[in-house]
């Protein structure tokens, strides 16, 4: 708690000092003004459209994030299991994935815009492309770390390869998947905000870059704090979900 209070105090003092020199200073708005702006943002509908932009931005961004991360997680799980369990797939794909993960996702954003247009698809695709190689590499490594004794044991109990994947490997990889998704949420936000900043009609990243032109620091800071809160809440929820669904993973740790 102490560091938060210290940062707040430092900000308040800086803001105070600047406004003492120039009462119209826009760079560090007074905390009271930020609170006021935030209250207006979350409650007052837009004059033209009649919708509250703050919530619309939030919904759009979360939808993109969920789709992108969901697709990435699905692909990561599928390929991670296949590469981790099947030697044939491993020899043919793991090098490819290793090279793929070196491609900087933001560098291919223009390609996505050209191929998929400026709509939702390219934003979702950027997030998915950005995090999938990491997820595949992490999950395939975790899968191949499963003790081979367990796989042999399952075989001696008559399990087919599919049964081993579904009943032995998959459930043990799920908590790892949640952990890997938690780690990749940071990059996912980065890709989301970048894509929204460049081409979008709404979204948290779009709004921040739009109001930047008017130096509306109070709006930007409100959005930044809100994004931080969402990111923190998502991380916390995922951690809880993992503990709830996979209690055995905690026992071992």
């Amino acid at each position, binding site marked *: 708690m102490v560091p938060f209070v210290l940062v707040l105090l430092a900000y308040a003092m800086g803001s105070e000092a600047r406004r003492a020199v120039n009462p119209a200073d826009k760079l560090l708005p007074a905390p009271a003004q930020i609170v006021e702006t935030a209250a207006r943002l979350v409650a007052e509908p837009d004059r033209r459209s009649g919708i509250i932009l703050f919530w619309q931005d939030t919904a759009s961004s979360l939808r993109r994030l969920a789709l992108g991360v969901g697709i990435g997680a699905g692909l990561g799980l599928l390929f991670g299991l296949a590469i981790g369990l099947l030697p044939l797939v491993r020899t043919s794909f793991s090098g490819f994935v290793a090279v793929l993960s070196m491609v900087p996702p933001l560098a291919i954003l223009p390609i996505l815009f050209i191929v998929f247009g400026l709509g939702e698809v390219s934003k979702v695709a950027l997030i998915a492309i950005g995090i999938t190689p990491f997820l595949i590499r992490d999950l395939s490594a975790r899968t191949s770390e499963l003790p081979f004794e367990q796989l042999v044991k399952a075989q001696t*109990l008559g399990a087919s390869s599919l049964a081993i994947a579904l009943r032995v490997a998959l459930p043990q990889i799920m908590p790892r998947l949640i952990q890997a998704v938690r780690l990749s949420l940071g990059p996912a936000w980065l890709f989301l905000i970048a894509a929204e900043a460049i081409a979008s009609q709404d979204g948290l990243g779009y709004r921040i870059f739009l109001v930047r032109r008017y130096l509306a620091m109070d709006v930007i800071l409100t959005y930044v704090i809100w994004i931080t809160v969402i990111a923190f809440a998502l991380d916390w929820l995922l951690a809880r979900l993992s503990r709830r669904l996979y209690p055995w993973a905690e026992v071992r740790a």
Partner: protein
Amino acid sequence: MSFVVVDNIFQHYGRRPILERVSITAQEGEFVSIVGASGCGKSTFLRLLLDQERPTRGQITVDGQPLTGEPNRSRGIVFQRYSVFPHMTVRDNLVAAEALGANLFGILPSPKRRAARERAMASLDRIGLAHVAHQYPASLSGGMQQRLAIAQALAGKPRILLLDEPFGALDPGTREKMHAFLMDLRAETKMTVFMVTHDLPEAFKLGDRVLAFDKVRWDPHDPEAFGATITYDFDARDGGIPYQRIKEETHVLDATDETPPLASSG
């Protein structure tokens, strides 16, 4: 006819021989202990019996059938560690023994699952693990985990049970209890057992036979030039002391005859 026939098998990894000229036969229901120096190929031998690997040369037949190269339900195995599924409760580990092979997905349809759960609870009761049925294996002691692993392997109703240092990580007291547990189970099921161990007394106590693996040829300049083979095949019934027993009986006879013990040994 012999149940398990190992006919002159060789196993190489790359160019390195691990096992050479290994031949034994075992009867159904026999308990075979396997001892030998670390790294001499005991686990390799079990892997061959398990059908996890094919030998480089030679053949193993079980009940007249040559092995196929894929482990299946006719053999159960217990390793020193990691033999149970950490993500399943103790009870579900036993249910899985029936479910995994039930169909392509390894999932039992619900009426059968209920019956399997009841059977699982019954066998947990018998092996003294009923009170931890809903816990995960990680919260169990090493001895309890191995008891579960053995019960799980047996729940698959294998004809041959393979044990690779199953009690190696247990303290002596727990080990004694596990011996009793295993002997009871065996008396019930009469199955064929191959057990690798580093503990000689354990090998003789549990086994009907004790096989010793060792290298018969040894090149001091290249210790890895030759593989190991079975160098001794002890009869270990009666705790591995058949000759002592004969001697004692003779001694008893001697005492009644009142002749010096030495004279009767010939």
